[in-house]
């Protein structure tokens, strides 16, 4: 397992890629859950250890891990019916703010990324038309109004 030394950010010194990073919950800077690390892209460097270039998120990335044919199929569906404009959301490793045993925090806002395309679409087209429930509109909801 490749190990890598990191800077003073909230990232442990020793990491196991598949164990600690792949499939980890990704959250944005407000700690809103935005998806999982569906894929990892490494950069191979001449004479130096490889390093993580970016993480990838999206159903297509997941499908690829099972089989390339499934990937093409999922991507076909996405093109035809999907709400998401891009198949893969790529977050450069430099955006990673914190990595704990339960999440990987990116220095982004989930709503501004393609990972929330579906969430946003459903909210605007479906949830919006159903009367609001009583919960959740305490201190959290007030901020957003």
């Amino acid at each position, binding site marked *: 397992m490749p190990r890598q030394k990191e800077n003073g950010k909230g990232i442990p010194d020793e990491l196991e890629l598949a164990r600690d990073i792949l*499939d980890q919950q990704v959250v944005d800077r407000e700690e809103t859950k935005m998806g999982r690390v569906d894929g990892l892209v490494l950069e191979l460097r001449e004479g130096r250890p490889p390093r993580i270039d970016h993480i990838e998120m999206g159903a297509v990335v997941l499908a690829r891990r099972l089989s390339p044919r499934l990937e093409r199929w999922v991507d076909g569906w996405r093109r035809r019916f999907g709400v998401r404009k891009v198949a893969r959301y790529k977050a450069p490793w430099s955006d990673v703010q914190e990595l704990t045993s339960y999440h990987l925090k990116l220095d982004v806002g989930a709503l501004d990324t393609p990972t929330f395309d579906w969430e946003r679409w459903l909210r605007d087209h479906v949830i919006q038309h159903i009367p609001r429930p009583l919960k959740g509109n305490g201190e959290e909801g007030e901020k957003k109004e």
Partner: protein
Amino acid sequence: MKKAATLALGILTSVGGFFDVGNLATAAQAGGVFRLQLLWPLLLGTLLVIFLVEMSGRFAAVTRQALPDAIRTHLGFATWLVPFLVLSLVHFLVLGAEIGGICFALHLVTGLPTPVWALPVAALVWLFLWRASFSAIENSTSLLGLLTLAFVVAAWQHRPPTGQILAGMLPTLPHHDPARYWFIAVSLLGAVISPYMFYFYSSGAVEDKWDDSYIGVNRGVSVIGMGFGSLISVGAIVVAAVVLAPRGIQVDDYHQAALMLTTAFPFWGFVLFAASMAIACLGAATEVALSMAYATAQTYGWNWGEDLDPREDARFCLMYTGAILGSALLILFGVDPLKLTLLTMAVNAAVLPFVAIPFLLLMNDRKLLKEHRNGWISNTVTLVVVVLSIVLAIVSIPLLIQGGS
């Protein structure tokens, strides 16, 4: 002080939440056909489920992760995909059985056919999840669920023979209908160790923001809550054995089970049965629907939480909406709720390896749980569950064909 209140509430809710359509159907059949001989699968199941629930709560308290979340994170997507799909399908059937239970209870009271109630009941369950917060749902349905203690009271009133109860707690070979005997035994186990409980319980612990300091509360809730909860199932078997078996009623239909409480409570028995069934199933239906949404949202990393405004977790909310609607269609199209329940409980037992094996791996992860990882007792019990569940998986499929009819 807050911890003591949490403990008390937790115990009450797990007693009230223990009994559901699966426990009712399997207990009625077990008592009706084999009297007190099938108490042992219930006892065995309770012992195992206490350990498993304690582990899922401890895991969530220490790691702040619910089970589906942790399995995807630590065992990987490819490992989790098949169990996830299989368990989702099973939960869909369980939800159908619970919704069917509420519909049948309403049919008993109103006389209208069961399928007529499918959509109104689905709307009720959905509305409940849509509007209420996590603790409101858990506490209200579970506290109302204490009504199912009526089975314990009824069993007490019948003064069952203590010797036979003790004898039924030891496994014995059947005197007649061996296929049916083993089928009901497997279903009883499946009803007590329902896989959705572990998703629900661990996700609930995360929703309630448990941390290491809740390990004691968790132990108390699982041991005392589940232990006393199973008394209700024991009560139901005893009542079925005393009331139904001597009259030769084998419970091929929920209508026959509805007679269970009429001897102990001549006037109220019928209504009490319908009310217990409706409330127990309503509580379980909300839990199963939430478990499905929890598992899916956690698998894909979506935002989730029953206390959030649905605008903040649209996909999570639509997941339980779709699950409720889809399962209600089973009842709307006339699937018999009792047959569905018995089949589902046997399937529950058959898919237990998918629950137990990831459990064993995660609970021994030194890096995740540190000093709170499993000791040898918990590991031995989980290993027993793994082995037993694999045996059950192999045995229950032919039994489904032979004894299920």
